[in-house]
């Protein structure tokens, strides 16, 4: 029973991180109709930056409590990167063929992945000091790090904040208006450029936050970005691209299936997930709640 609870908690943890990544991807697609292939790599950047900052912080003797503030800082750094990328590299292509967009973001993956290798090298970078800073709690007769609950909590809070932001604030209205009809929104005086860069920034923040909160539980490694991209893709396939609800449900589904899959087919973990994606696409091409 305790083991089951731990499995569930682990799935929720994974779902939390996945939700952040997928929601960011979906938000960007929903508002701007573009898919940033480098989204997974930005998640990885969030992980690396956070782990590195934590490392520096520890070296400088910063008390642990303050180190937790580095999590949102890591996420913010990714948001800033995104806000530089969007106007420079993506905006020239909105009116052009979709291929160019995909090509540019693919090139971005190569740049980001190798930059991570350049800056931090091939050895994994961890931040488990943060996780260890929080107590271990008892679940049944077993031990479980309280930090994991924090991750789950962050995911839930993010979902609520996003939902509230999109549906209950003026900015949210601007986002939705621009996503419905860009030209109309612009004709009504909305600064579409500002909306775009903000939406992209928020999406990247989500990805970075996902990386930031996950890195205390699992070290940042090269290649984590691509794996994340593909799994995030599975999530949006199931949930539907452009839907917040879809990202949430998709993240939960993928996460639980993955936990179950690891139990029975550890070797083929990734393959099982990709298979699910392919199956879902076969049956319901736009996902459960998709707007694509």
């Amino acid at each position, binding site marked *: 029973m305790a083991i089951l609870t731990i499995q569930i908690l682990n799935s929720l943890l994974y779902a939390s991180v996945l939700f952040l990544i997928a929601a960011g991807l979906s938000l960007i697609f929903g508002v701007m109709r573009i*898919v940033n*292939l480098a989204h997974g790599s930005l998640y990885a950047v969030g992980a690396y930056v956070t782990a590195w900052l934590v490392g520096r912080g520890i070296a400088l003797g910063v008390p642990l409590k303050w180190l937790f503030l580095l999590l949102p800082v890591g996420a913010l750094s990714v948001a800033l990167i995104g806000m530089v990328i969007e106007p420079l*590299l993506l905006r*020239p*292509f909105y009116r*052009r063929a*979709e*291929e*160019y967009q*995909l*090509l*540019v973001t*693919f*090139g*971005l*993956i*190569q*740049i*980001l*992945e*190798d*930059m991570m*290798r*350049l800056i931090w090298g091939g050895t994994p970078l961890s931040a488990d000091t943060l996780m260890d800073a929080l107590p271990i709690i008892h679940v049944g007769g077993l031990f479980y790090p309280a930090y994991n609950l924090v991750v789950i909590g962050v995911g839930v809070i993010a979902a609520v904040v996003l939902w509230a932001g999109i549906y209950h604030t003026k900015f949210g209205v601007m986002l939705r208006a621009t996503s419905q009809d860009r030209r109309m929104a612009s004709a009504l005086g909305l600064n579409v450029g500002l909306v775009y860069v903000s939406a992209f920034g928020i999406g990247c923040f989500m990805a970075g936050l996902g990386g930031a909160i996950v890195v205390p539980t699992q070290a940042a490694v090269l290649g984590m970005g*691509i*794996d994340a*991209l*593909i799994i995030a*893709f*599975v999530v949006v*396939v199931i949930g539907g*691209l452009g839907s917040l609800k879809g990202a949430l449900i998709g993240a939960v589904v993928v996460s639980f299936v993955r936990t179950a899959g690891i139990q029975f087919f550890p*070797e*083929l973990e*990734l*393959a099982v997930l*990709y*298979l699910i*994606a*392919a199956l879902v*696409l*076969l049956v319901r*091409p736009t996902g459960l709640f998709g707007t*694509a």
Partner: protein
Amino acid sequence: MNADLKASRSRSVLKLAAAAALMLLVLIVIPAFVEVYQMQLLIYGLIAAIAALGFNLLLGYTGLLSFGHSAYFGIGAYTVAFVVQYLGPHSMEFYILIGIPAVAIMSALFGYICVRHTQIFFGILTLAISQVVYSLALKLYWETGGSDGLRVPRPTLLLGWLSFSGPRGFQQFITSYYYYVLAVFVVCVVLMWVIVHSPFGKTLQAIRDNEIRARFLGIRIRRFRWIAFLVSGTFTGLAGILWVPLNGLTTPDVLYWTFSGEIVFTALLGGFRNFTGPIVGGMVFTYLKTYAVASTEYWQLLLGVVLVTLVLVLPTGIVGAISKLGQRLARGKS
């Protein structure tokens, strides 16, 4: 069609044929002037050109951007390696005979899954599939040699008539293999040219330009995309088959997403809206990569930067830019 149009058409076809013949002549004569190392590079270039040619049937002519073409290249390479493992070393023809159906079947299978979707989902699905194949090659190490890969010895050519051993064996192999690959390359180019100018090729372009209208001409979109995928994967797979005896070894690297990226890059570099673009891209890229790898450990970064710059500045690629230049000069003259 009036006589003027007909005449100008034959003139441009003649020009094309002349240019192609000239290029072929250069390629045939080159080995006399270069060393073994350069010839190896040329062979790699021709192989990259074949891979890109196959890839571009999907991108340039059908409008589908695949990020997982490394899968077909790798399946071609690993098929040859498996043949060596289980049936022993054989002639190149045998490898090709077994390899082509293998890549064709896998392309058909994966293509069937992928073409049900457009653009973004198609792209990521192709990526996901190649990652699955990659992870299988990596994890099933008892079959695939894992990250160490599998070795492939020098094959015999022309059904065993030509074999290469002894002190000068390597040099002789490279020279002979160069002409061998060149011959296959010419066949591939001719085949692809015919396909692209056939009714099938026109149909693909129509689907690329306007899917809805194509449907309202009675064209079954999905079927055509699937067939294009099959042909495309087979060409790229053939490149993989030709590659592994030269490389002597196949590893999972050749299935990794970064390799797919290289294939995409070659098409973009040469220009994916032209027939010759991928060919030029394949050859130029091979040289570019060799120098990039030699100059920095972070050549992936360099490539990424060049890719992004290309898309921003020279989206029509080398051939596209040259042809635009040519048009401007022609207009200037008249």
